[in-house]
């Protein structure tokens, strides 16, 4: 809406084409490792470590079987006297003298990741948007100092406080709990959320709320009906940043969760240790691990693009 937009000169067709080629090249380069992980998930054990690496191979579900099951080694005689195989995973296990004894922990760990990441994202955004609104619209004493303080929580690497947090969590009983992890990730993310969202809310003209106030709405109603809808883009962009952090976080997860509340990132490497270096299973786990962020981002990509370029377009 501001008139002082940047360059409005259309790039020439040639430079557009060159830019296109560069973007495609970059996309290909970043996609190769992902594609490799995706393919490795469908390789057999020997194929996954073959040298030179195999691009063409016979697909196998072994990796996914190993990801979702636990197996135990048995003597060939024992396996021979078993009834016929009950499923494809059982069949795979028997070829290497193993039997499936139960489900692995992958599904519960994955569910933990979902609950913790989405829970902390929701909490970060709710706290962030209300704090950002207050900072943007009200006279807060020592506003600049408070904002700097909030930002300063990000100035050291979070892992620097890992040991104190570990000790405190042990004392208050938050160790290895989903609530503990949600609170921890929220504490890390909320500073980012406040700063990002304050920027977005600052851009929403006050007149909108004031019109609502004059029209008979309370401050809270004006916030919900006028400010929030217009901050959607910022909220979505913030949520994605928060979610990516909480979803991928590894160091705290290793330190603070071991059982009940363990998330997928510390779980996936553990697979390596179970019965040899099972790369297909690790790749299968990594592939599935990517999906929630992928789905979330694709669903909201329209907002995300607008959100990330928001400041650049308007200033």
């Amino acid at each position: 809406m501001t008139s002082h937009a940047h360059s409005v000169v259309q790039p020439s067709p040639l430079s557009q084409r060159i830019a296109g080629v560069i973007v495609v090249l970059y996309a290909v380069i970043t996609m190769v490792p992902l594609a490799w992980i995706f393919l490795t998930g469908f390789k057999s054990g020997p194929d996954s470590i073959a040298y030179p690496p195999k691009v063409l191979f016979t697909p196998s579900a072994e990796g996914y079987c190993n990801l979702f099951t636990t197996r135990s080694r048995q003597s060939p005689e024992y396996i021979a006297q078993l009834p016929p195989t009950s499923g494809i995973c059982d069949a795979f296990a028997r070829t290497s003298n193993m039997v499936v004894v139960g489900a692995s922990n992958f599904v519960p760990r994955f569910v933990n990741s979902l609950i913790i990441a989405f829970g902390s994202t929701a909490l970060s955004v709710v706290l962030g948007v209300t704090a950002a609104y207050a900072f943007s619209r009200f006279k807060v004493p020592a506003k600049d100092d408070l904002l700097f303080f909030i930002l300063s929580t990000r100035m050291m690497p979070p892992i620097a406080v890992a040991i104190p947090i570990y000790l405190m969590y042990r004392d208050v009983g938050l160790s290895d709990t989903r609530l503990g992890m949600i609170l921890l990730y929220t504490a890390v993310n909320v500073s980012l959320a406040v700063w990002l969202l304050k920027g977005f809310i600052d851009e929403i003209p006050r007149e909108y709320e004031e019109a609502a106030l004059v029209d008979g709405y309370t401050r809270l109603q004006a916030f919900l009906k006028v400010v929030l809808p217009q901050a959607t883009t910022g909220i979505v962009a913030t949520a994605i940043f928060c979610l990516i952090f909480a979803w991928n976080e590894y160091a705290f997860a290793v330190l603070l969760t071991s059982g009940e509340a363990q998330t997928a990132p510390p779980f996936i490497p553990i697979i390596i240790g179970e019965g040899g270096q099972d790369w297909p299973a690790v790749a299968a786990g990594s592939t599935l691990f990517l999906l929630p962020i992928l789905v979330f981002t694709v669903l909201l990509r329209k907002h995300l693009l607008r959100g990330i370029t928001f400041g650049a377009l308007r200033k």
Partner: protein
Amino acid sequence: MTVMRMAELVMEGVTKRFGATVAIADLTLTVGDGEFLVLLGPTGAGKTTTLRLVAGLEGPDVGRVLLAGRDVTPEPPAARDTTFVFQQYSLYPHLTVYDNLAFPLRSPARRVPEGKIRTRVLEIAQLLHIEDKLANRATQLSGGQMQRVAIGRALVRRPSIYLMDEPLSSLDAKLRAEMRVELKRIHRELGATILYVTHDQTEAMTMATHIGVLDQGRLVQIGSPREIYADPINTYVAMRLGSPAINLVPRRLYPNVEAPAAAETIGVRTEHVRIRKSANGGAVGRVKWIEHLGDQNHLHVTIADTDVVTLCDRDAGVVVGDAVDVELTAPLFFAANGERVRAN
């Protein structure tokens, strides 16, 4: 009508400061029922602050605000019966035109049934000629349409007073002229009480029943457009109305004009300067420049070192460089401090 019409808005000795700046200084103002009061003043004169004080978006440091006889000074905006048209950003971009118009009626404080809202919105849309745009997003409208919807948002309610903050300033000249007529028509048809602020003297002259002139947070003069134009109390007010602006010439250039003793400056409007081509050598001025505006011509005449602007007929036969006699037909006199000095 036998019912005595009550003043809709009374501001009593209102002062508002922002930090060290005094935005409004001891403002006392009355807007009667059905009046269209235009507050005129340059940027920073306190026009918008006055509106915000009435709406309750700001609280006064001193003084009271009364609406329809009720002291609303401590009340929040929602509890006051006003409506506000902002200079810009008055439409919600995430809503359709219909929902924008319905928004004030849907407020939890009002709880108007949807059927009634529909009737009212359609009525207003017809009044403003936007009935075919109701399904559009607010962002798909042209500037003129947006501003009409913004005014429509104010009109769907029947508040005790309509507050308008330069609602036409973002429009181009043609649309602004149309909207002036439109607003005046709405004022007549609805009998609405309107407090309108602008720095545009044309808007003030064409629409107002009363004009108040603000200067640095003070109300300098209030009266009918005619009074303000013809009878300004100081040079500041005199300069605010009239285009081209009133000529202010030193008293000493016109020793022959009968003037009060304290008069230092003579104010004379362009239409009150009479030019005659000089026949003898006693001319007082020389034509410096002629502006042809199509409908009128502005003649710039230099008298000593002062420029006087007047209107002249195209066929007056005056050309640049001519020596002319200048006669003032309805002079106003001002003292050295700019205050009006009246004859006798």
